């Protein structure tokens, strides 16, 4: 509760934490984060991972984002092991308003909520291994520059395509969409993308075809859609066949048989962020009826 003094990390799991809160970790006599661990046996036991929204500080863990504190136990069940992170997925459904005051009526100021509709959107920050959709903005010698929605453009070598050689260049034009994966995503360096996996296979990555429709959604929705056994995707796939590419940077590319069918998918995906499962089922029932 009181920031600054610090609270035990276990007590806060599932609770809301705010930046500036200090989480204390249980003291372990053999726990020494600074010592380099050698040998496979000693490494996993009691190892604590510090997830998103948390930083290490002298007293324990410093919270840097607001959200719910989550904890996952290590495999062995060691008390100090496992991972802590802050779940700051902003699943907000609308704008919020709170009042504090010495009683009486809330301030008589313009009702902002009545004028605006909230659309949760967070700036994308490249993460190593993320699959994203990039737009080619420039061809500079042997690299392409891709806009991935981050603070900086990502680079993509012309050799990072399946079957590409110095002789056999991929046919990439400015404006093309590319589905790839981050090989280097580092705060100090330019992000680098590839369209092949470690064995040299494309595994679905590469240039996205000519037609189709690209649109942006919030990062929270993308995470929801990419979750294994996502109900939305399963229900959609029963409507009619279509192609779908989901990028972790919030971009979605859709292509169905006709333009009309494509736009229906787009509208459903954009709307399902704010629909409950019940509302969605009704919408799908209406669509499959005609």
């Amino acid at each position, binding site marked *: 509760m009181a920031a600054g003094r610090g609270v035990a990390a276990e007590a806060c799991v599932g609770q809301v934490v705010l930046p500036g809160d200090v989480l204390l970790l249980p003291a372990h006599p053999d726990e020494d984060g600074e010592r380099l661990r050698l040998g496979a046996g000693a490494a996993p036991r009691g190892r604590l991972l510090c997830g998103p929204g948390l930083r290490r500080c002298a007293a324990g863990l410093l919270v840097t984002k607001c*959200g719910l504190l989550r904890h996952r136990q290590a495999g062995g069940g060691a008390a100090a092991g496992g991972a802590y992170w802050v779940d700051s997925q902003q699943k907000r459904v609308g704008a919020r308003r709170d*009042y504090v005051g010495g009683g009486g009526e809330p301030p008589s*100021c313009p009702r902002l909520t009545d004028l605006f509709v909230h659309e949760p*959107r967070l700036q994308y920050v490249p993460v190593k291994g993320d699959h994203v959709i990039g737009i080619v903005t420039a061809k500079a010698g042997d690299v392409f520059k891709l806009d991935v929605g981050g*603070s900086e453009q990502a680079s993509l070598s012309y050799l990072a395509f399946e079957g590409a050689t110095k002789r056999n260049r991929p046919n990439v034009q400015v404006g093309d969409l590319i589905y790839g994966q981050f090989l280097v995503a580092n705060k100090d360096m330019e992000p680098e993308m590839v369209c092949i996996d470690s064995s040299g296979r494309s595994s679905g990555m590469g240039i996205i075809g000519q037609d189709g429709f690209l649109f942006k959604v919030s990062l929270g929705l993308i995470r929801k859609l990419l979750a294994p056994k996502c109900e939305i995707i399963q229900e959609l796939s029963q409507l009619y066949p279509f192609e779908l590419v989901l990028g972790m940077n919030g971009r979605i590319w859709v292509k169905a048989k006709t333009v009309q069918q494509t736009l229906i998918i787009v509208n459903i995906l954009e709307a399902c962020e704010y629909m409950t499962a019940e509302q969605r089922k009704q919408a799908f029932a209406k669509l499959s009826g005609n």
Partner: protein
Amino acid sequence: MAAAEQEEEKMAAAGGGCCLRPFSCEQGLLSRPDGSAAFLQGDTSVLAGLYGPAEVKGSKELPDRAVLEVLLRPKVGLPGVVERSREQLLRRTCEAVVLGVLHPRTAITLVLQVLSDAGSLLSCCLNAACMGLLDAGLPLSSLFCGVTCALDPTGAIVLDPTTRQEQEARAVLTFAIDSAERKVLTATTKGSCSVEEMQQCLAAAQRAADTIFQFYRDSVRRRYSKS
């Protein structure tokens, strides 16, 4: 898209001698910025929009940390010298809590639009800025809040003064206080006061800050209790 959900909560301002005007906050009300917040203190209200970490334009890029830019837009007209001076003050306060080292070579832009000024504008700007940073999900080392105190001619401290109280006051002091150790991040004074009076104002501001931080926490807690 979604019907904007409204929730209204009222809380009695706690703490002896702490009589802030009723305050309220809305987060995430703009669709284009990465984070936004409106903060209302009595009849003073400020809207904050936050963009970033985004691409840096021009030669402002810093190799080791993010560039923070604050723009303060008055209700009418163009920003003048007063706004520029406050922009710098707000920028330095935000820089103290934003962990800019985690996003080097990027720019964070904070735009504050004054919607109505009925006194204690600077503290309202500070609170709106903090809620905007929180909404954007930027890494912060702690939160902060702004508290304005006015010393009336008799020497009594008025917290969160109105425009009229500010005009009648001998001195108006604004403090930015951080949530981790209740320490002062920024202090600015208009008018003259003794060192003792300043200390008294600071103590009163620190007490009032607890109410605001509790409000921040309750506000975030209510947001997450629903999802």
